[in-house]
Each structure stands twice: as structure tokens, then as C-alpha cells.
């Protein structure tokens, strides 16, 4: 024993012993505790991949329903909900595909289900069908009026605002409030029932806005600019939002 060790204060020797014991114990135990396969493929346990693969399937996918419910799958395929999976509404059904009698699907018949996708939210893309559930035909279940597998508005909406609520609301308070939608967009009636088949047209060039805004004797009370010098390299809506032109 080197002779400085006995010279250390008693308590330090005891602590040092404890530390040495703990460190040695850690070094012995560590290799045993590191999960097998750690570090083989990266900073993780390689077996974790197999564990993930081994999880039970919960969802079967739309294709697997066709075998027994082809009426429903074809109905769904022809309607607005064609991109939806059956199981987004009926819950995970891998078990049902194996044993149809044993595992029963869910039926979301309540009024609070459909709004998860359809409640009005400015985050949703324009044109996405949205309602404000508090004012949309309260007290009746949605499926009373809309067949969930082929939902259609039970009547053709008259106003553009039924589907483009956000645009309509901002235009209504803008300096363009008095310019009608169809002045700028020519819309086929079919757009109101199948908006993707019948697309609405949009203005394509600067002259369009020039009708009212360009320096000429057009008699419009709109503020005037000179088309040839006012930012000629861009179309107007790169800078002015047409539904709220005063926005900077």
C-alpha cells in the first residue's frame, strides 16, 4: 500500500472505497444490461425493428373490404368520400376481416363525428366542404340527410359562400364588396354540384383588372393606375389579394 493512503482522513478512505465499489459494479453490470443487438445498426437496439414488425395489424385497408361488401365499396368509390378509408369511420377492422361475426365495426352516428373533418376551420383548403355545426340543421343526425357513403348536399347550394365561406366573408368587407364573384370568375352551374369536374375560371392577365383600374375614361370610381408603368412585370394578384385588395 502506498504510504499516502493511510494518511487520508478516515471518511475520505471510506467514500473512496464506496466509489471504487460502485464504479466496478457498474463496469461489471453494464455489459449485461445493454440490450442485445445495441449498436449493430446505429445508436439503437436492432431488435427494435423486428419488434415493430411483429405488432399486430389493426387496420385491414379498403381493398380487403371489397371481397364481402362490394356494394359499399363501389358506392363509396363513386361519391365525394371516395378518398376516405372505410376504417376512418368504422374503426380498425383487421379482426373483422378474419372473423366477421366476432369483431363488430363501430358506427359513428353522432353529430359530433363528421365535424371532425367538416367543422369550419380556416386551416382547411378553400373549397373543402365545411359547415358550422351549431347552425347547420341542428338537432338532427348528419346521416339523416347525408348518406355517409355517398354524401351530397341534399340540394344544390345557391351561393358561392356555401363552399367558399372564407373568401366570401373577406370579400364582403373589402373594397371589392360590390364586385360580384362571377364578374371575375365565370362559373358553370355544374361547378356547384361537381366542383372538380366543372372548374371555375380565373382572370388570367393584367388587362382584366385594367377594365376598371387602368388609366382611361372608363367612368369607374375605382382608383386608377397606369398599366404600362405600374409594376409591369407581374400579374396584379402577385401583390394584391383580389378578394381583399386593400391588404398590404
Amino acid at each position: 500500500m502506498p504510504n499516502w493512503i493511510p494518511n487520508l482522513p478516515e471518511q475520505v478512505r471510506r467514500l473512496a472505497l464506496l466509489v471504487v465499489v460502485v464504479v466496478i459494479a457498474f463496469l461489471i453490470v453494464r455489459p449485461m444490461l445493454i440490450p442485445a443487438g445495441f449498436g449493430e445498426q446505429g445508436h439503437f437496439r436492432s431488435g427494435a425493428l423486428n419488434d415493430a414488425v411483429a405488432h399486430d395489424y389493426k387496420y385491414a385497408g379498403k381493398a380487403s373490404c371489397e371481397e364481402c361488401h362490394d356494394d359499399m365499396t363501389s358506392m363509396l368509390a363513386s361519391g365525394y368520400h371516395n378518398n376516405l378509408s372505410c376504417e376512418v369511420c368504422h374503426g380498425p377492422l383487421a379482426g373483422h376481416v378474419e372473423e366477421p361475426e366476432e369483431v363488430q365495426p363501430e358506427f359513428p352516428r353522432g353529430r359530433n363525428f363528421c365535424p371532425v373533418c367538416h367543422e369550419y376551420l380556416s386551416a382547411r383548403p378553400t373549397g373543402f366542404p365545411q359547415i358550422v355545426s351549431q347552425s347547420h340543421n341542428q338537432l338532427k343526425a348528419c346521416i339523416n340527410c347525408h348518406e355517409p357513403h355517398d354524401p351530397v348536399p341534399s340540394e344544390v347550394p345557391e351561393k358561392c359562400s356555401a363552399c367558399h365561406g372564407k373568401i366570401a366573408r373577406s370579400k364582403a368587407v373589402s373594397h371589392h364588396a360590390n364586385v360580384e364573384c362571377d364578374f371575375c370568375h365565370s362559373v358553370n352551374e355544374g361547378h356547384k354540384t361537381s366542383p372538380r369536374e366543372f372548374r371555375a375560371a380565373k382572370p388570367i392577365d393584367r388587362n382584366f383588372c385594367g377594365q376598371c383600374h387602368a388609366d382611361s375614361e372608363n367612368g369607374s370610381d375605382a382608383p386608377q393606375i397606369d398599366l404600362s408603368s405600374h409594376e409591369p412585370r407581374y400579374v396584379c394578384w402577385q401583390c394584391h389579394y383580389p378578394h381583399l385588395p386593400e391588404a398590404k
Partner: protein
Amino acid sequence: MDELIQHLYPLLKSVTGYIYPNEIELHWGLLVSLYPYLTGLVAGAFILASLVKVFNVKELQPTYRLSMLTALAFLIVAPLPLLLHLGHPEKSYEIFLTPNTNSAMAMFGFVYAWYLMAVLLLELWFDYRKDMVIIAKSSRGLKKWFYKILSLFSKDISDKSVAFDHKAVRIITIIGIPSAFLLHGYVGFIFGSIKANPWWSSVLMPIVFLFSAIVSGIAMVLLLYMVITPIRKQQLDMICLDKLASYLFYIMIVDFSLEVLDFIHRVYESEESIKILASMVQTKLFGSLVIIQVIMGMILPLATIAGVKIFKVPADLRKLLYFMSAILVQIGIFSTRWNVVVGGQLFSKSFMGLTTYKMTFFGLEGLLISITLLIMPFFILWILMKILPPGGSETQEAAIQVPSP
């Protein structure tokens, strides 16, 4: 699935503006806000204790051991909210076995272990060693063995050896101060270094966290001192209490100035996020930030203590005012943590909308668990004070005869 719908439906209605689809659900909730609150108390209580040892603030001597034990009790509970928040708490020890040095969060294990083992336990051990030896000598049976093991069978309580203990405590405290800074600065760092989140990303974050930690630690020790001393049938030391309140006051001023600095800096810098942050503060965080954190948790206690300092307030009223202020400070600091953690997730990264947080009562992330976690440290403190009485071996009932050295 029904549960999911029940959960999402009301949330949808309180979303305002534009948010991305994955932002409706907050991933860090009550439990995660609890964690910086608890570590803050640890760091604060420790720094208070170090005032006594390193800076020789004699007036605070009565609270030294109490602060150390408080720090330990809270440190034991501090990682629990994180563990409960993890999907697999039973695997958490693996971060020690296979350290990932690239992950600040993974390194927390080491910061924690260092603080617990190298600082708190060691300092307490040296500080209590003499008492433990004396108790071990004067008791019998299981208790004797318990204290023998705790003191690592050490026997030497000569003056020289006890003097060494004192020196060791001092050195550990000196190492401990940067460690305490590290422990809580680290928590601020975790938030401050998240570049993508303008509410968090700020170099001031670790420092603001640290000072609010000290504030909360001092206030907690003040509260505990005022509650425990009468229970132990002792007299409150008014000089000590006044000193505690003064320190609380000064540190709060620093903390408040830092927060104001951070605020001015943000407003002046006026990055593209400023509008949404402003509207968040005016709506969703108005109650918890403006009312609770700033007015109730900061301005009111500051004004109260300032009042006590200016006017000659009789001792009994002073006690009451200190007590009330310390409670307000606790509530205020908790909501500071809440506003950082939850606030950082309430606004959309598109800067165009706000989502909302729905607290649950039951469940791992619920209110019930959080309340339990908040009560636990006090329970642990109670046990610790039984084992390691702050009054030293004299107050241990069993230690009848203290052999004179």
C-alpha cells in the same frame, strides 16, 4: 374511437385562425411544465444553502440544513414527471448505459446524476457525518445498523476530522454552485435552443430560468421554514426571516429585469412571429401570464416586500406578509413554467393561428398525477427530516447522552 372524437371535437372549436393539422394536439402538457418547476426549486434551494457556506451569510444558518434537505427531496421527485411522460419509463436507465452525446435531452441523465451524487448527497453526507456517528453510537438494534451503514461505518469524530468535514462541505458547495447553475440552466437551454420555436428560442432563456429558479427556491425554503419551525416547537428567527425575504426581493428584481429585458428585446426585434405571440399573450395566455405570472406572482410580492422594507411593520404582520408573498411567488413561478412549456405549443408554426390545451384529470398526463407529484417532495422531506434531523443529533429523541468530545 369514440374517445378520440370526444377529445377532438371540442378542441376543434377553440382553434382560431390557421393551424397545421398536427398542431391541434399538444404533446408537452402539465407533466412537462412540472419538471422545470421542480428542478428550479432544487437549484434555488441549493443556491440558498450555498449562501451560508460559501458567502458566509450567518443570518441564514438556521435554514442551511433545511435548504439542503429540501433540495434533495425535490431532486428525487424532479425526474418523475419526465419518466411518467415517457412511453417506456422502465427503459429509462438505458440512457446511462449507452450515452448519446449528441442529444441534450439524453445528457440530462448525467447532469442529474452528477448533481445528485457528487453534490447533494456528498455534501449532506459530510455535513451530517458527525451526527450520524453519534446517533449510531447512542442507539441500538436496527437503528444502530441503519446509521452505521449511512455513515459508512465511519467512527472518527475528533476535532480534526470534523474540521475536515467542514472544509469538504465548503469545497463541494463551491463545485455545487456551477452545478446548480448547470442543472437549471440546462433546462432553460433545452427550450432556448429550439430554433424553430420563437417563443422558446432565446439565449436569455437559461439565465431567466436560473433566476426564476433561485426565486422559487428561496420562497419555498421560506415557506417551509415558517411552517416547520412552529411544528418543531421552535421560535422563528426573525433576523433569518428578514434576510430570506431580502434575498428573495433582490433576486426577484434581477429576475424581473431579465424578463423585462427579454420582453423588450422581442418587441424591438419584432420578428415575423411577433404578431401571433402578441395575440397569444392577449388571449390564450392572458390569465396565466399577465394576471398570474406578472401581476400576482411578481409585482404584488415585490410591492409587498418593498412595503415591509420601507415602513416599520410589526413582526407578526411581517410574518404574514412574507408568507403570503412566498405563496404568490410559488404560484407565479409555476405559471412561468406553464407559460413557457404550454405557450410554446399554443401558436401555429405558420404564425397564423392558435390552438388550445385541454387538461385531463385522470390518466398519466392528468391533473391528479401532477398533484400527487407536487405533494410527494413534502412527504419525502418529512421522512428525510426524521432520518437527518436539521437540529443535529441532539434533537433525535433516542440520542439521550451525547458523549462530550
